[in-house]
């Protein structure tokens, strides 16, 4: 029995590996304790928003810890609009 057929679809697909690859660490750590819809921190947006040509090469190399601490649960909206 394989279950009924359905027409599911992808809602969110990571189509850009890029330099935008992030590892979001939420470990139990006093330095890292948040959960909130607080607008997200700036993270590394300016730094890793590279051109697509850079992105391919950076795919495997540029893994960064973004860090949404586990204590921070909120709609923090990221404000960083600057572009380096």
């Amino acid at each position, binding site marked *: 029995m394989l279950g009924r057929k*359905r*027409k*599911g*679809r*992808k*809602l*969110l*697909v*990571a*189509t*850009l590996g*890029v330099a*935008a*690859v*992030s*590892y*979001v*660490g*939420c*470990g*139990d750590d*006093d*330095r*890292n*304790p*948040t*959960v*909130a*819809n*607080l*607008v997200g*921190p*700036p*993270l590394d*947006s*300016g*730094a890793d*928003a*590279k*051109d697509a040509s850079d992105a391919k090469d950076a795919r*495997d190399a540029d*893994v960064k810890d*973004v860090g*949404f*601490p*586990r*204590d*921070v*649960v*909120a*709609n*923090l*909206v*990221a*404000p*960083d*609009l*600057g*572009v*380096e």
Partner: protein
Amino acid sequence: MNKPRGELFELELFGDDVERRYRRMRPEVEQMPWGTFDTSGISEKALVIARKQWTLAAFQEHRTAIACTAALRALMECRAPVDLVALAARFPLDELVHVELCSRMAMELGGGTEVRHDPDELILDAPAELSPLLRAGHMIVRFFCVGEALSIPLLRSTWKAARHPLPRTVLGRIVRDEAAHGTFGFAFLDWALPLLSEDDRTLFGAAADRAISAISRQWESIRKNRSADYDASVGDALGWMQTDSYLELAARSMQARVREPLLLRGIPLRA
């Protein structure tokens, strides 16, 4: 080549009758102006930023849905008033809708970006040895009295800053839902306070301190890493506030929306 850490944050819809029932629960989602965002005037660099930020917003909403669900369980376990629990029962669905909205915004701009995570480490649960009431309070103080209370003014201002109709509609929906989330924690405290000892209030204060300190460190990181130049095309795509305005509002809101209401209820704070 090293194997990447964690699991990739991607999401799907079941479809068919399940999706139709879900749509009937929240019909406003399909009425939003999807497919109207013209990215042709936005630089590739700006688009990458926007896609990443909306992907991370979806991830953060996903975490918040888990936090709301954990708090809901604890509320039931401590036999909180039924109407109060019923109010909180709506929150996980609200957050799931926000997950969908932010995901679709990322896809509208070209697709999500890679976010890897450990699904076992998404939120910090309350210490298991606490009583049900204290477990509920430990989480609610952190998730709602700090996180969600602070979210209200920040989201509202972000919504006002959004210029394109699509992110403006998306953020408007989130703002309306979060208004109830932001006041919920203090309603819980108003019920729970007569049941608490001084030690219990100190415990809740320490939980709040932890969340406040974590957010403060994020703001410090924002302050240190912000760029001096404002790129309007990024602002259009993101619908976000500018950094200085955000930080100023955030500090003001932490005092008025978080610290003062907690102190007013006898929850001691150090952060």
